[in-house]
């Protein structure tokens, strides 16, 4: 019997919590841009939220010029406010903000889309993150169609308030007990 996508996400949540106890901050990143890091970050945030954890989803802006200390300060604020903070960063090796975030967060989960061609960045990403002091929890191998389903499902759960641009920072904060748990509460920050 095939395991549902939600169950697979719950398994992933359990695996993460086994390594890092809340409050925790987790970076969901990928070596390539289209590997589905936003979808997995959204799915993982939904899994934590469904498990009753107040969860924030922070989408990093590659053009953000803030220093690591400023980012760390902001993440510390979120950590104080939420049980789990999921930080999403695609193409981690080509973004200084993402590398700063990887160094600051409690653990890094890499996502890779199955079936795509192997590239040099795939082999370099783990050694590079380790060299920067990041703790790589592991890799999530995801079928592209599953990631597509995840992204589509996330679209129903999340109300994006404000302009949905790449510079958008989305913070998802809601508990399972919230009356609006079926629809995630979005905080918009700029």
């Amino acid at each position, binding site marked *: 019997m095939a395991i549902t996508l939600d169950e697979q996400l719950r398994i992933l949540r359990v695996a993460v919590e086994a390594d890092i106890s809340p409050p925790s901050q987790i970076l969901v990143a990928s070596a390539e841009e289209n590997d589905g890091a936003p979808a*997995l970050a959204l799915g993982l945030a939904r899994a934590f939220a469904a498990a009753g954890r107040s969860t924030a989803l922070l989408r990093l802006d590659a053009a953000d010029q803030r220093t690591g200390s400023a980012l760390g300060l902001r993440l510390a604020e979120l950590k104080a406010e939420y049980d789990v903070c999921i930080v999403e960063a695609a193409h981690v090796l080509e973004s200084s903000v993402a590398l700063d975030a990887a160094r600051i967060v409690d653990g890094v*989960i890499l996502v890779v889309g*199955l079936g795509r061609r192997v590239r040099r960045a795939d082999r370099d990403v783990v050694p590079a993150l380790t060299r920067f002091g990041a703790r790589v929890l592991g890799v999530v191998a995801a079928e592209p169609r599953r990631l597509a389903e995840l992204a589509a499902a996330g679209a129903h759960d999340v109300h994006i308030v404000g302009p949905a641009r790449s510079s958008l920072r989305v913070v998802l904060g809601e508990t399972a007990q919230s009356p609006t748990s079926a629809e995630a509460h979005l905080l918009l920050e700029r």
Partner: protein
Amino acid sequence: MKVAQVKDLLLRRWRPFTVAFLIAALVLNVLAVLVVPTEYAAESSVLMAAGGDHDTPSDATSATKPILSADLPYLATTATVLANVARDIGWPRNPHALVQLMHHIKANLSAPPAGAIALAPGAIVVIRFTGLSSLDSAAGANAVAEEMTRFYHDRATERFSVLTADLQRQVDARRARINRVDAEIQRLTAAAPYLATHDDTHSLSAQYQTLSQERAEVEAAARGEAAAAAVTSRRPAEAELAARREITESDPAYRDVADQFGHDFARLSAVQAQYSGAYPGLPELRHTVAGERQAVQGRRSTLQQKPPALDVGYAAALGEVTRAQSIAAGDAAKLQGLNQVLGETQDRLNAGKSLASRFDDLQRERDVQTAAYGVLSARLAEARADQAQAGSIGSVSVLDRAAYGKPVLYTVLPVRIALALLLALCIAFATIFWLDRREYRMWSVTIVENVYGAPIVATLN
């Protein structure tokens, strides 16, 4: 590779798979329809009805190893059999063509069904020949069976063939030598018929003896005649002296002068005896006598100059001399003739002795050659009998001839098309497998784990 992986591969690569399959199917079907011909296979069989493998003849490559029934299929594709089959069916006979021909031939021992009872010792070799037509395949199968059988018999009797061939050569050589000796004898006999019998030789010797005796007699007679001729030859001189003396004496003038000379010479002698030199008239007398002597001598000389031919005695003496000389010449001629005949006879006798010796040598050689010929002929007959016996042991014969060939299943058009499609399918699969291997992709979590060097914490599939 699991079925799920193949299915996944097909899902991922269905486009190149389809393209590859269509192209391969098109090309292969065109080839299958237009290029690959329908082949026919015909079968013939050869029976080896041997008393046992130990009775079979030796292989040509070994003097001691017998040809076993298990070796029979091998015989079908030996170079000798292939060459003969190619000759029989009109196949090219170059080495490359013979190798191709070998691929058309399959020979196997027939496998008896389980529980079959062997009625007699032996083996059956089934020969299968594939060709482009039913008749060609049947002709090929039959040719292989026949040539294989012939080859087997040749090998079976090869050692005797060598022996009989060698004996035959020796017999032929002896026969040729005898023929040459006979021709030589015939030539000698034609040249000297008496050589055939020794009596003729003896008669020639007797003839020689007779001639020799006759020659001795003639020679003795000739010597007598020569002596007589020598004696007779002196008679004309004596007759001539007498004739001249008679001519002188009968001449009156000579007689007068001689008489006067005698008278005066006597008177001179008396005077000289009786008187001294002082006798008067002595010198005149002496002078007279000397003059008369000269006159006598002059007359005599004159008379001596006259030929005595008219003298009867002289003429008779001359005739006797001529007759004696004729007789001597005749004897000499006869003697010369006899000498010639004797020389010829001697030559013939000498030649006859040489020819007779050669004749005897030839006769002796012919006897020797004839005896050797007889011995060799006997050995040849014995060897041929052994050869026939060897050929009859472990005999191999064509058991069943092919009448026609049946189409080979995999060469029938529908089967060819089906095989082409199957092959196209394989090519299509091979193509997508190749594409998959050429592009290193993250098809599995194992690959992801190996590439990233980190554990897989979850899989979304």
